[in-house]
């Protein structure tokens, strides 16, 4: 395969060319209620070429027929030359890399029959259904893959990578007297078959929560001290802050750059945030990004001050900063764009969860995430469930906990961070620019916001 890449690159007439070829073997099983929805094995393959010429823009070609590679190399060059630019696109220098990386397959999923995968998922699905008659519906899915990627560019980088992934997810829907509630569980790992056993208890707990929420009151809307659990704090930092730290948001936009000036205070000194594509064993972890730049741990907020951002080679060159290994593509069908990897709030010195809530008379403990969306500086997050905090203790279960607010105000109101850091190893992924789902991980300890708006009955 590398010979094919080298030959195709030699045939390129562009100033800069890069080629990515992929082959992905995957299998998937899904249940809806007691019924098996599908059990399939798929093989997907294709290639991606990107070319750049002086005074011109990017020419991009993607294709499923690998025989078309030489023609697509020529096509990308033509497309690049059709795009005339006054201000050239520059790429920050990187050291050419040569590596063959093969991550541990951890029990090669290709050697396990679909029937065995079905039995595993059936057990987890059954654990949700067995909780109560009120569990009227479930969705459970298992997906695994082994992907092989070959990458080479005209500067001498030649890489190959083989990596596994496995995701098991379940949703339990509980219904009684017209009320409908859901419980979610999801495990996503850059590992294989050996790592997805023994999870029945977690799926049972998710279904039990859906049933408990049926009788739980809606949270009363208003401003409260709010504690985010590890999962929601991770989702929050990814959605509300992480996307603004992607340099493609600011590199062409002077006003955005002013808003995200390095050195600006974003929070109290307790707040430390970063993105670490090199953290071992996580879904967002890879040795190199999709431009062949090695991944790294990039500090974004240090003691409350904005200190960094995430880059591709193009955004780094434009801003005179260094590439961070954050140019990623979900597949050969897309160009690499600036993305997060494993984004985290670092553990703080605020003590334990109990210490965080000790002096809260009335507050909300927001747990898990049904979803989150940010529109630039405004965000909305739906917690999977919540508890009231009364007189320093966790009190009754509440539902419909929606956190909404302004990013800058909210980050600044984070006043205490616990030491109980954890990575949330979930399925799903991040979406941006039509590329979804990109495997990422988020991590955080329990985080206290001194005051935040909780929607519910507004």
């Amino acid at each position, binding site marked *: 395969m590398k010979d094919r890449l080298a030959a195709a690159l030699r045939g390129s007439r562009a100033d800069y060319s890069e080629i990515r070829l992929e082959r992905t073997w995957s299998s998937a099983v899904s249940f809806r209620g007691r019924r098996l929805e599908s059990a399939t094995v798929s093989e997907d393959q294709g290639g991606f070429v990107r070319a750049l010429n002086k005074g011109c823009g990017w020419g991009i070609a993607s294709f*499923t027929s690998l025989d078309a590679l030489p023609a697509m190399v020529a096509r990308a060059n033509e497309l690049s030359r059709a795009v005339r630019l006054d201000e050239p696109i520059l790429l920050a220098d990187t050291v050419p890399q040569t590596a063959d990386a093969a991550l541990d397959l951890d029990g090669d999923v290709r050697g396990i029959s679909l029937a065995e995968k079905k039995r595993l998922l059936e057990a987890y699905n059954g654990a949700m259904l067995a909780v109560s008659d009120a569990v009227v519906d479930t969705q459970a899915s298992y997906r695994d893959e082994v992907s092989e990627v070959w990458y080479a560019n005209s500067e001498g980088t030649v890489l190959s990578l083989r990596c596994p992934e496995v995701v098991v997810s379940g949703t339990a829907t509980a219904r009684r007297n017209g009320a409908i509630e859901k419980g979610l569980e999801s495990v996503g790992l850059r590992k294989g078959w050996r790592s997805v056993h023994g999870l029945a208890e977690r799926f049972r707990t998710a279904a039990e929560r859906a049933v408990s929420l049926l009788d739980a009151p809606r949270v009363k809307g208003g401003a409260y001290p709010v504690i985010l659990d590890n999962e929601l704090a991770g989702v929050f930092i990814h959605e509300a802050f992480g996307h603004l730290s992607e340099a493609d948001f600011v590199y062409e936009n002077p006003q955005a750059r002013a808003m995200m000036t390095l050195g600006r205070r974003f929070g109290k000194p307790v707040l430390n945030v970063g993105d670490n594509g090199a953290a071992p064993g996580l879904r967002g972890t890879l040795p190199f990004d999709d431009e062949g730049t090695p991944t790294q741990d990039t500090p974004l907020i240090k003691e409350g001050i904005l200190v960094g951002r995430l880059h591709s080679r193009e955004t780094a060159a434009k801003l005179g900063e260094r590439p961070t290994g954050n140019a990623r593509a979900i597949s050969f069908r897309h160009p690499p764009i600036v993305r997060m990897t494993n984004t985290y709030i670092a553990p703080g010195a605020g003590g334990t969860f109990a210490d965080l809530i000790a002096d809260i008379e009335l507050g909300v403990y927001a747990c898990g995430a049904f*979803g*989150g969306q940010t529109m630039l500086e405004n965000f909305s997050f739906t917690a999977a469930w919540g508890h009231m905090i009364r007189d320093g203790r966790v009190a009754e279960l509440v539902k419909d906990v929606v956190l909404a607010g302004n990013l800058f105000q909210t980050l600044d109101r984070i006043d205490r961070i616990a030491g109980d850091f954890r990575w949330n190893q979930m399925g799903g992924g991040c979406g941006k620019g039509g590329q979804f789902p990109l495997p990422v991980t988020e991590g955080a300890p329990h985080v206290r916001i001194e005051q935040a708006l909780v929607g519910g009955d507004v």
Partner: protein
Amino acid sequence: MIDRLLDAARGRVDGADALWRREERTSVAFESGRLKAAGVTEEAGVNLRVLAGGRTGVAGTTAAAPDVAALVERARASAELGERLDLVFPPPSSSPLPLVSTYSDAAADASLDALIQMGRGLVERLEREGCQVNVALEREVSETAVGNTAGARGRYRSTAVAVSADVIRIAADDVLMVYDQHLGAALPEAADLDALVRSIEERLEPALTVVAPPDGLLPVVFTPTGLAAVLLPLEQALSGKTVIQGSSPLGDSVGVAVFDVRLSITDDPLAPQRPRSRPIDDEAVPSRTTSLVERGVVRQFVYDLETAARAGTRSTGHARRGIFGKPQIAYTNLVVGDHPVTVGARHAAPLLGGGLIAGMTDGLIVDDLIGVGQGNVIGGTFSHPVALAYRVQRGEITGRVKDAAVAGNTYDLLKRIGGFGSDGRWLGSRWSPSVLLEGISVARR
């Protein structure tokens, strides 16, 4: 390819259907007013479903010259695990497939330069001091073939041209983004591009002034974009999949007047020049128009072959399938409005508020909300912060509101509709005007 695959399946399985699709996309993207990239995508693949021993299985591949025997075997292996299902592949239609225009030679033949010129023209018209303009154009040409072992066959070509533009203004920590798109099977004409520019200007100008949000139970005009939050629960509830699962709140409501007598919702795969229109669905069921809600009465849910078999009814022709995985239910073109809905050939003139605000003492126009689709959608209750909304006072738009949230329940709100706007338009694959709803809970933050 379809015939070869079905021939290979005959004898080894009890029946099969297959879809082959080839797509070519050409795209150009202007970032902050500058053309930065041009791209092409070529993709082809085939999806096969087999029925073996009363169970179904699927397999797909993007390989250029797939081993058909191996593909059939993979689908058969997948079927071994499947549930029992009385799936019947539809025989060839006794009448010819409906005629629907889905292809435009001008769109298919448009040169890269023509797309670049169109984009550059839009950028020039949208550029203004202190704002960033992004424009993207994508032209897709596709060919689809579908067939089954009962002898049904269908084949058609489609084109789609998508033009999207957004204007972003950042002033200190205030970020304003106004977005719109034009989507059609044909190349947009000058009038379509005018409408796109005017729609963005209409919403940008009044947004430059920020005013305090109101508070309380208020009338709200949802623009065609803003309406997504209100309609999403219905889209889920009218799917045969949620109905057979028992999770649709409308499951027992066929023939029941659930909504305001003026509300009608139709799914129309035969709408001319729409990218999701088609003569036949992805399971070889001929396309026809389906009335889902008529004058407030629930009429019909949408089904594909599998959900129809489970529900003991007929497919409504709503199967959509990709190269991988099995067919799923999907709407084609949803037409929402005041009965009888008249879909114009092109956009009505953009009019923020849809002509519905004249009598409004105090209220909002909601164009975009944050977090639509999160949480427990199907129950109909929603609560979202606004992304782009305007305050209306004494019949006039007074400015943009920030830091406000709107909440309500779709099923309650659509029982009484305050009015339909005169600004009906296509937004992707949905046609609707603005809709005035009373008694929306609006909260200040």
